[in-house]
């Protein structure tokens, strides 16, 4: 399979039209001065090719904010498991968000498998867009080593002055490129450019935290039950924003809805957050994570410790969303730096 192609920049619009002829298209659009969001695209002009990480990561297409799991009828007592899905192409997925998707994959393929997630994922086509420089000061993709795309895409776009270099990740990606007839096979000069870019990126993206990649987990282990967190989360409002915008947070709540006749209804899952007051509360009233501070420590453990033990992956993609979106300005970078100052490894 030919893996590298070139698309002339002036043909991008043709390519996206071609995509639209095959499936629905979602891509980043501008929502406010610094806010972007992935949205269904009808008007290609609206696509923001260069954008700050979107408010919500693309996980919303894999694990929607609200999703039906079961439909039931109280009279016939019939219950059916349903899967909602759509043929959709995501265009412009950032390098960090690719990692987020891989994290979710690791969780959802683990037994018992999450069929809804996996089925929906099968119908999605991912066209990634490599970041050539930092989006802003919140990103920590340097230390998380998520600035070079490795996998998780069907097609990868890397931008150069007059063209995009295309890398094919899957057979599906190859088919799209071939069918579109818009691409040329990449030549040596293109690879040279790519190598140069990647080298330049190694210079641009440097660890943003005063600890090494491997030390992050150790930092968590040492900090966990100590006073190292003192004061860091006093500002936390427990609003739940940091988890909702996180590309690797997947916790959900399950609730029933029924029509007014109390006959037909459904069981739905909705994103939930470990920062919410009721998250770890049991029916008897005991709240196992009553203190706001502990909820935040738990969040950090779920990014830098538990998934490393379980999946050998950090569940932080360095996208910076949690810091960017926090109204109390709690920054992941500052938190980790403070911990590394306070904890001698």
């Amino acid at each position, binding site marked *: 399979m030919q893996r590298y192609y070139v698309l002339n920049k002036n043909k991008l619009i043709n390519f996206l039209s071609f995509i639209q002829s095959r499936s629905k298209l979602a891509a980043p659009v501008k929502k406010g001065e610094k806010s972007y969001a992935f949205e269904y695209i009808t008007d290609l002009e609206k696509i923001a090719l260069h954008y700050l990480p979107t408010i919500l990561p693309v996980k919303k297409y894999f694990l929607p904010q609200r999703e039906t*799991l079961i439909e039931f009828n109280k009279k016939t007592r019939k219950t059916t498991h349903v899967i909602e*899905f759509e043929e959709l192409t995501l265009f412009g997925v950032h390098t960090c968000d690719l990692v987020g998707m891989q994290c979710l994959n690791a969780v959802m393929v683990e037994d018992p498998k999450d069929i809804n997630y996996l089925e929906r994922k099968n119908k999605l086509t991912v066209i990634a867009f490599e970041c050539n420089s930092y989006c802003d000061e919140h990103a920590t993709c340097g230390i998380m080593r998520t600035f070079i795309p490795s996998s998780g895409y069907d097609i990868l776009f890397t931008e150069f002055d007059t063209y995009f270099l295309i890398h094919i990740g899957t057979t599906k990606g190859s088919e799209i490129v071939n069918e579109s007839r818009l691409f040329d096979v990449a030549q040596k000069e293109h690879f040279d450019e790519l190598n140069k870019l990647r080298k330049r990126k190694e210079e641009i993206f440097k660890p943003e935290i005063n600890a090494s990649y491997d030390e992050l987990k150790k930092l968590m282990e040492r900090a966990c*039950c100590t006073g190292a967190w003192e004061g860091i989360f006093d500002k936390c409002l427990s609003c739940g924003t940091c988890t909702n915008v996180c590309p690797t947070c997947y916790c959900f709540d399950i609730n029933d809805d029924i029509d007014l006749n109390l006959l037909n209804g459904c069981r739905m899952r909705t994103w939930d957050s470990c920062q919410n007051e009721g998250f*770890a509360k049991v*029916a008897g009233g005991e709240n196992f994570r009553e203190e706001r501070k502990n909820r935040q420590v738990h969040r950090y453990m779920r990014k830098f410790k538990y998934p490393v033990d379980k999946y050998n992956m950090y569940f932080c993609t360095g996208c910076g969303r949690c810091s960017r979106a926090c109204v109390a300005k709690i920054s992941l970078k500052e938190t980790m730096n403070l911990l590394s100052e306070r904890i001698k490894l």
Partner: protein
Amino acid sequence: MNKKTIKHSSYTLKPAHIIETKYLTDDIKYFKLRFTDGTDLDYTPGQFVMVSMCGVGEVPISISSTPTRKGFFELVIRKAGKVTSDIHSLKTGDKIGIRGPMGRKIPLSTIEGKDLIFVAGGLGIVPLRSFIDFVLDNRRDFGKVEILLGCKTPEEILFKDEIKDWEETLNVEFNCTVDKADPKWKGNVGLITSLIPSIFVYPERTYAIVCGPPIMYKFVIKALLEKGIKEDHIILSLERHMKCGVGKCGHCQIGNYYCCQDGPVFFYHEIKNNWEAL
């Protein structure tokens, strides 16, 4: 959005009939269930099921019967929220949706031939009853069996008839204490930990199985360790908020563990260093 349906998934419900029900106290009700297709629930003591009231919700409920008795399974449910209240309205003959069994199947061979101490605080007796009846159905496979029960008041003691049976016919030492006695109460008054020092144990061959309110564990474990019982001989059943039961939704997480998959039954040595467990 397109939609398709599938036959079996982690979330599909299996219908069961209620074949018997009775109130044990004002807000605690007993349910005997049988799957409508006649199959048995393939479970181990310590496991739980998700019970569904479509339109209202789903709750995790520990299984209170022993798998040695076939053709049914039993749940004992306290009215604590909207789903459990709704379950209480069910009568014999009604149908209910079940998912499960959920949770880890602990290898019962580890406790075979051993002396056992059951320590139950309040409703903790409900899941422990599954272990107790399992042991009693295989009475000769086990050594000395001691049951310690602590309740707030004498009225809160569940399974009074069965307790009598355990004591009289099955060679079980039963000790009970209440926080607050009434005039008729002749037994111990005080916390459950007060019962532990006076029991006689051979630490090497004794396993303790503990279930009760969260506050109880630390103190009971301390008392058991003081008795010389080893850390890997203490078995604990922990309660957490559960929504999916399949290790995804995140509510029941205890440090590195998902209570619904890795528990709810744990050996003490597995969780003693877990910052969120006890």
